[in-house]
């Protein structure tokens, strides 16, 4: 549904996006993750037909953003971090206005359906200026959906929302995926991405540094382990060094010692490590495989990508 092919976008001498390629299929949520200024917004604006790529091509629903920008815009719904509403209008006037801009022939039933979905029916004839921040964001989402777009571009949609509203928004996004829409979620909220996205594309300094299924990224890298021991620090260091295991971290806690290491071949390395620890007189309380959160994976990937 969305295909970004080797897209570069420059603003003067600044390259906001460099040779980016990725795909978002129908019924899929892809999180475009990256720090501030990484190029996420530029990517969503190119896909949404607001900006033309300097090089490369973006295809939305089979249409080139270069050749058919208006048709591409008609197929996309865009939500930004700021609701960006005409606050002197009522919700009904606002949605009707955008429905007409998007050539929706009979907007009434669609608007009624959307406000019900957003739980805003009672506010339909209220001026948008009187809405709370969360309600304004809901109105912005209703605007983005008024023409039933097959593609949704969500650029930090949960910014400044309270946890309850964030949860509602999350459920809404998931329900939109079930309607076979292609959803690109630009965010630096890793928790959000981990909860709802099917795949993750990590972008840093305009370059795509990793792409894959959320679980795939979390499990990428060397498997890591954590053991809780009762032993002397020096003895543990000596035992693990003798077993050829490199310690990633070692910290005393409540009279115990917490040791972390990683291993390419856990069966071999862990056996050697445990044997060495026992031989050194250590009492082993627990040994666990460490599960990386998406945040850990993300930080490791970003760090790795910045290494010369």
């Amino acid at each position: 549904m969305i295909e970004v092919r080797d897209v570069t976008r420059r603003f003067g001498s600044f390259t906001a996006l460099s040779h980016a390629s990725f795909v978002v299929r129908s019924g899929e949520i892809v999180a475009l993750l990256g720090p501030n200024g990484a190029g996420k917004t530029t990517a969503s604006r190119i896909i949404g037909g607001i900006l033309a790529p300097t090089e490369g091509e973006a295809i939305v629903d089979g249409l080139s953003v270069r050749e058919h920008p208006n048709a591409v815009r008609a197929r996309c719904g865009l939500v930004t971090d700021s609701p960006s509403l005409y606050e002197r209008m009522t919700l009904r006037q606002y949605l009707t206005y955008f429905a007409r801009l998007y050539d929706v022939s009979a907007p009434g039933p669609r608007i009624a359906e959307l406000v019900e979905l957003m739980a805003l029916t009672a506010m339909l004839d209220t001026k948008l200026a009187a809405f709370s921040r969360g309600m304004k964001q809901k109105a912005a989402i209703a605007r983005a959906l008024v023409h039933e777009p097959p593609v949704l571009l969500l650029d930090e949609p949960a910014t400044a929302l309270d946890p309850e509203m964030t949860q509602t928004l999350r459920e809404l996004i998931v329900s939109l995926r079930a309607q076979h829409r292609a959803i690109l979620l630009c965010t630096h909220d890793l928790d959000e991405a981990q909860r709802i996205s099917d795949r993750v594309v990590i972008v840093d300094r305009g370059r795509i540094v990793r792409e894959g299924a959320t679980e795939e990224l979390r499990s990428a890298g060397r498997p890591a382990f954590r053991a809780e021991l009762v032993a002397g620090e020096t003895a543990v260091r000596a035992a693990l060094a003798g077993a050829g295991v490199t310690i990633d971290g070692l910290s005393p806690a409540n009279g115990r010692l917490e040791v972390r290491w990683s291993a390419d071949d856990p069966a071999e390395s862990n056996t050697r490590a445990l044997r060495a620890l026992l031989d050194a007189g250590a009492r082993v309380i627990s040994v666990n495989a460490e599960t990386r959160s998406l945040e850990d994976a993300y930080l490791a990937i970003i760090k790795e990508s910045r290494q010369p």
Partner: protein
Amino acid sequence: MKALLLARREIVEQYSDRASIVRALFLIALPIALIQLNRSAAGAPNEFILVFALQAALLPAATAINAAAGSFAAEKEAQTLVPLLAAPIRDIEIVAGKLIGVMAPAAALSIVSLLTFYAAASQRFGAARIAEVLDPVTIAELFGLSVLFILSLGSWVMVVSARVPSQRAAQQIAGLVLAGVVVGLTAISSVIGNIPTGLIAGGVVAVLLSDLVALQLAQRLWNREEAVARL
């Protein structure tokens, strides 16, 4: 069609502000008040009536300055530009919508002001004299002049408004332009009888050329790429 939709929203936005209505009424009332309060007006020459008629046509048109000042800067400040630029509208429709939104109410005010002035002047100087001085052709010429004036001010202020960082800055510029307009009109009033016809025609051509340049610039600045780069 979408340009008209954009224009309608612009107009509603402008006149949902009470200050805009008060400003418009003041500018309509000003030339009428001046002739009503001027004791020597009854014996004044016809040029005197023409000068006030000119002011009646052009002063309400100056409301276009404020509207144009807010057209880009206010949207930029409220961040309402992105959803607009994300909608399936051509750049030219956006420019046309903005310009119509600025020009249409100012032109309507100008015609209302001229007709109100006509009625007030008829009462002050006698209907026969006013019918002779402000015949339909003169009224049409004055209205045409005011439309040109609105187009000039509107497009140039829109160009400036696209480049300033905030609505406040745009309104300050609009205030300066408005002050310049008032000074210009006063100056014209004092020498109107002595301006050679050729110079007037030359002035009109110069204004038309300036309008074309301003419209070209406004269209470039409203190009999506440019607009997004300025957000």
